[in-house]
């Protein structure tokens, strides 16, 4: 960077922007800003429809822009944004999963606003102000522009070519998520606690990321991943900056995927956040964060991996084992799925640690498969109600298979996918990451992974047994008939889980064709 600045006293040359390559991000941010304007100027009655429309149209348009951007691949904005195969694949994934998430978030059953979100975020839980807001028909339609901003950050995260852009993307995707977590319409104190916890720990992990980025800047004299990679071969005597720098940046990134020991926020936040938001976080944030880790590790610091990969091995093993073992003791469906998501993060890390092109494609396939299943699973959780609130305690799910066979059947199928049973996407995905790990010297990780899957499978089967072979405790638990929105989200999620299990070849092929990072 310093070298490139020496001749700058003459005249400022504007950075070239390849608009075709950044169009998806521009569309999403544009839709978010239109959403803000709708919030400011549209009358309350039309806001819900307008916001959902703007969000969905924006996401579909951005997806098409991703398809168009295939012809605009390359590094743009002086290397700050790199649009290559993995970036485009993950951006497309994020957008597709976001459509499902927005559909689930927009569910309003027979109410006036999105059902999962509070009528007025500023009203104290249980206060007269809150009930007045509910009576007056207030809705928090701001959640849609907030979601769009988060999606915009997620699109940039795996495409960031330098650590500064990556950090800005990390903040842009995180800040709306902190707010969204705190806006649940029921059990609001739990939701607000989750939001605050996520915010504080997220800020903490961002500080780690920044500290690491500063050390890597000290090491290589640049924030650029490419320059850092070059410096690893030539710079000598500065490993004292490199290794801590890499590890600290990884702490910031691993926090986002909920890897052990940076996972402690996951169960609380997944439980407290509105259920569709939990699905959104579990699917899309993981996709974006794994994209960023892939780019950082494969493009940036991969050549020095002998120094820090053992730490990542330890994290992967801990993540799989702790996630699987702790999910046994859970009694709450959302917490169970949270620990399951931790275990899945560990499985994906084994693919990442293959340090090969196959590793990249297996990771990308895994996050797609897991994303579709998890959004559908959380959407189903939001349908099972006891009285007015969600019946998240496991005992309330007893006998659901008899009273509501279709919903319970779909959930059981998704659980089988999480367990990795053949003919579901979970099996193909697990097979891909484990075979990548075995093929490239990470066999112990794959062995631990298989054992952890077996433990996790026990948990999922227990839930299925509970739903089908246990007498229901009471008849107050029922499934609320969903509208077309949630039905579509669940149907697409379940269908993708089945399709990727039966005919995974096209997507695996696409993933392996787009697995090459631009350096």
């Amino acid at each position: 960077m310093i070298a490139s600045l020496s001749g700058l006293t003459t005249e400022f040359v504007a950075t070239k922007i390849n608009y075709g390559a950044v169009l998806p991000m521009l569309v999403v941010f544009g839709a978010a800003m239109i959403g803000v304007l709708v919030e400011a100027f549209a009358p309350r009655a039309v806001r819900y429809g307008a916001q959902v429309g703007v969000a969905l149209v924006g996401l579909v348009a951005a997806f098409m822009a991703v398809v168009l951007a295939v012809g605009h691949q390359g590094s743009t904005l002086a290397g700050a944004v790199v649009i290559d195969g993995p970036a485009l694949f993950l951006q497309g994934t994020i957008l597709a999963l976001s459509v499902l998430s927005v559909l689930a978030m927009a569910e309003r059953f027979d109410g006036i606003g999105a059902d999962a979100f509070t009528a007025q975020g500023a009203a104290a839980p249980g206060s007269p102000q809150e009930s007045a807001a509910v009576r007056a028909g207030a809705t928090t339609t701001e959640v849609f522009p907030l979601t769009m901003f988060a999606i915009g950050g997620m699109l940039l995260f795996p495409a960031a070519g330098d650590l500064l852009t990556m950090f800005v993307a990390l903040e842009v995707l995180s800040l709306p998520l902190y707010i969204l977590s705190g806006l649940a319409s029921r059990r609001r104190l739990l939701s607000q606690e989750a939001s605050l916890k996520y915010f504080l720990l997220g800020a903490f992990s961002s500080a780690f990321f920044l500290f690491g980025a500063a050390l890597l800047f000290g090491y290589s004299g640049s924030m650029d991943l490419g320059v850092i990679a070059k410096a690893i071969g030539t710079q000598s005597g500065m490993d004292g900056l490199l290794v801590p720098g890499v590890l600290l940046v990884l702490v910031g990134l691993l926090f986002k995927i909920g890897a052990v020991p940076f996972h402690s926020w996951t169960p609380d936040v997944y439980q407290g956040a509105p259920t569709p938001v939990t699905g959104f976080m579990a699917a899309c944030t993981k996709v974006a964060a794994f994209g960023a880790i892939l780019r950082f590790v494969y493009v940036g610091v991969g050549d020095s991996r002998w120094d820090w990969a053992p730490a990542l091995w330890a994290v992967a093993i801990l993540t799989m084992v702790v996630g699987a073992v702790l999910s046994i003791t859970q009694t709450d469906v959302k917490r169970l799925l949270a620990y399951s998501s931790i275990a899945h993060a560990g499985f994906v890390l084994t693919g990442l640690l293959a340090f090969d092109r196959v590793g990249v494609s297996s990771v990308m396939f895994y996050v797609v498969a897991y994303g579709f299943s998890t959004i559908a699973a959380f959407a189903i959780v939001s349908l099972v109600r006891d009285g007015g609130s969600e019946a998240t305690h496991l005992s309330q799910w007893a006998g659901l298979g008899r009273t509501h066979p279709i919903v319970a059947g779909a959930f059981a199928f998704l659980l089988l996918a999480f367990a990795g049973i053949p003919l579901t996407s979970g099996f193909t995905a697990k097979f891909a990451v484990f075979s990548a790990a075995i093929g490239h010297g990470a066999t112990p990780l794959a062995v631990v992974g298989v054992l952890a899957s077996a433990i996790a499978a026990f948990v999922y089967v227990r839930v299925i047994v509970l739903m089908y072979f246990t007498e229901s405790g009471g008849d107050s638990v029922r499934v609320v008939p969903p509208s077309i929105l949630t039905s579509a989200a669940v149907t697409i999620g379940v269908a993708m889980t089945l399709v990727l299990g039966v005919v995974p070849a096209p997507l695996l092929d696409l993933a392996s064709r787009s697995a090459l990072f631009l350096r």
Partner: protein
Amino acid sequence: MTSGGEAVLFWILAPVSVLGALGLLLVRKAVHVALGMAVVMINLGIFYIAQNAEFLGIVQIVVYTGAVMMLFIFVLMLIGVDSSDSLVETIKGQKIAGLLLSTGLGVALFAAIGSATFASPIGLKEVNAGGNITGMAVLIFGKYVWAFEVTSALLITAALAAMVLAHRERLTPRPTQRQWSERRFQVGKNLAGLPAPGVYARRNAVDTPALLPDGTPSEASVPRVLTAREQVNDPEPYAGAERAIEREIEEGTNR
């Protein structure tokens, strides 16, 4: 260390900022913590300026010490200057475990970074050739223009979030004076409005109730919120003092 003057500056200010940083951790009162933070921030600003990064130094002082610290102090004023954190451990052994782990991390980082051999610093002379601020501008609007633009999304999110979490939109029209009055007559209570708080010779604040004809304090004359917070004053001393003065005056006239 490039020059002797810079070394002197560093060795004077570095201990001061370390003391300020330690104060952040060890001092109990929130205002003192804020002051400690301000000391650290100002020192950092001076360090930046000493290292040829004038713009960064000024921004550090203006933004952090000026704006952020002022917000910090405002928040302290709102929640009460006297409030201090509860130091009760909710998880047993957390303090010791945290201390051990953070010391371990600190030692590991010190050892690792200390073992690095640094090349001679390039310095900012070259970058600052066209002026410090010009150099910054070239970076912000050149290479990092995308990060700069995307930061605006962050600011909009922050504004939106503040509105969502803190703005209580009025959902029903505010009743007018006339409507209040009509409502009082319909109910048939407090026709002339609620009584005003007590006015005494030595106090006329809203937290001191007025006295009813029989001498008891009227609860209706103080705001509900103060009653709920138990911040209502006892009017007896003020009323008593007033009665004493009245008595003295009366006795004086009798004499």
